[in-house]
């Protein structure tokens, strides 16, 4: 019996297991890529936030830093400089910002590379209110941002900077913005991908042309709208 089996094995047509393994894993991965976003929300329902945050589908920020260090700025020492084409240059303290009318947003934080964190709470001052306080002078076209990390820079057109969901945030996730998330104060450009939301915001300069920021000089679109469009105007305006 055993010997017969052995003989049988030799003459038998062989099973193409290799091809099957490659095709099934390839198909599984393809389905995962194409349906990824939908699977993500389903998996989030199951895993929840907490421990789910450690798993691939979980709600998780991936912390990026250009310089490899997080600038340490105390709430007391923090200053936001507003300069350039403005009538009244400012050096705002955290208390100054907190004294201004607050804007609260709850949005999905979406990275251009694909990961996202749903339902993030933000609180801060509308950038438009800060620009109004400084008084934008004629000839101004764009706004440039710099970071306490002395490396990251960002830019928005003046129209973009005046959108109601672009804020200078001092609270995030229900607490003061942490150091790793860009605290004590960071930019949050809700309608665009995460790289536009510069961390450790140190200065706002009103300028006469768009100056592409760090990520844009490294290949990211200057206008990183969440719908993937890259024109200067808000794609949501067309829908309204």
């Amino acid at each position, binding site marked *: 019996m*055993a*010997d017969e*089996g*052995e003989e049988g*094995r030799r003459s*038998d047509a*062989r*099973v*193409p*297991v*290799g*091809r099957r*393994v*490659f095709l099934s*894993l*390839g198909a599984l*991965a393809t389905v*995962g*890529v*194409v*349906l*990824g*976003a*939908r*699977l*993500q929300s389903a998996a989030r329902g199951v895993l929840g936030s907490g421990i789910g945050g*450690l798993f*691939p*589908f979980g709600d*998780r*920020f*991936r*912390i*990026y*830093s*250009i*310089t*490899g*260090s*997080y600038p340490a700025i105390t709430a007391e020492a923090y200053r936001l400089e507003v300069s350039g084409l403005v009538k009244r240059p400012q050096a705002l303290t955290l208390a100054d910002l907190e004294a201004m009318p607050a804007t609260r947003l709850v949005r999905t934080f*979406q990275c*251009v*590379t*694909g*990961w*996202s964190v749903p339902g993030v709470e933000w609180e801060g001052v509308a950038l438009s209110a800060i620009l109004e306080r400084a008084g934008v002078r004629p000839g101004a076209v764009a706004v440039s941002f710099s970071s306490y990390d002395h490396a990251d820079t960002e830019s928005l057109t003046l129209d973009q900077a005046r959108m109601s969901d672009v804020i200078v945030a001092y609270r995030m996730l229900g607490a003061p913005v942490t150091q*790793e998330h860009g605290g004590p104060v960071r930019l949050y450009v809700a309608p665009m991908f995460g790289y536009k939301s510069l961390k450790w915001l140190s200065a706002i300069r009103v300028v006469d042309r768009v100056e592409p920021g760090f990520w844009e000089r490294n*290949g990211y679109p200057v206008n990183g709208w*969440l*719908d*993937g469009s890259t024109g200067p105007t808000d794609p949501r305006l067309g829908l309204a």
Partner: protein
Amino acid sequence: MARDSGPATVLRFSATQRVAHWVNALLFLVLIVTAIPLYFGSLFGLVLERHVVEMVHLWCGLALPVPLVVSMLGPWGAPMRADLARVSRWSHAEVEWLRRLGRSALRADKFNPGQKLNTLIVGATILVLLATGAMLQWFSPFPVAWRAGATDVHDLFALAITVVIAAHVILALTHPRALAAMVRGRVSAAWARRYAPGWADELGLEAPRGSTEREEAEKVTSP
């Protein structure tokens, strides 16, 4: 004692195969080590400059298929090609053995079905990780939903392959003679008859006196 007739040792892995294996292993190790701070960014924070870790991960990832592909090509690739043919086309007995998790009799080939499956899973996963990793690096042609999918597929396959590799390493460490074959290339004829009797037959290694084929086969399936 003169149990063995014929050669005392036989070549299991050519020098090319061994070099390819260990270069591949080193690349996988670097990829796993660099993946940890990239994945758990908020826990590890700033072990190293993130950009440097990213670049190391990217280039090791792109290099991953190179040793395997090079080891398959050219005249030096003949043993690799022959082994891949063994690994990819199975007998029905092998399929049955795997289906019953090793509880059916099998006169094992040069590699047992577990080893063959490991090779196939690692190979296919390398391709998946390479494709999704490239989508994460060069994301602009893809819709945002696909980038999200690629991120999760990359993470999940990486997690799975890390578990597979960990099991592979544990099995290697608990089977030192099998591990030695991947270091020195050769195994004893007795080892081949015991663990790879089908292969031993092909090589013309005679069964030791006083032992029937059936006993040999049973040895393989016993723990």
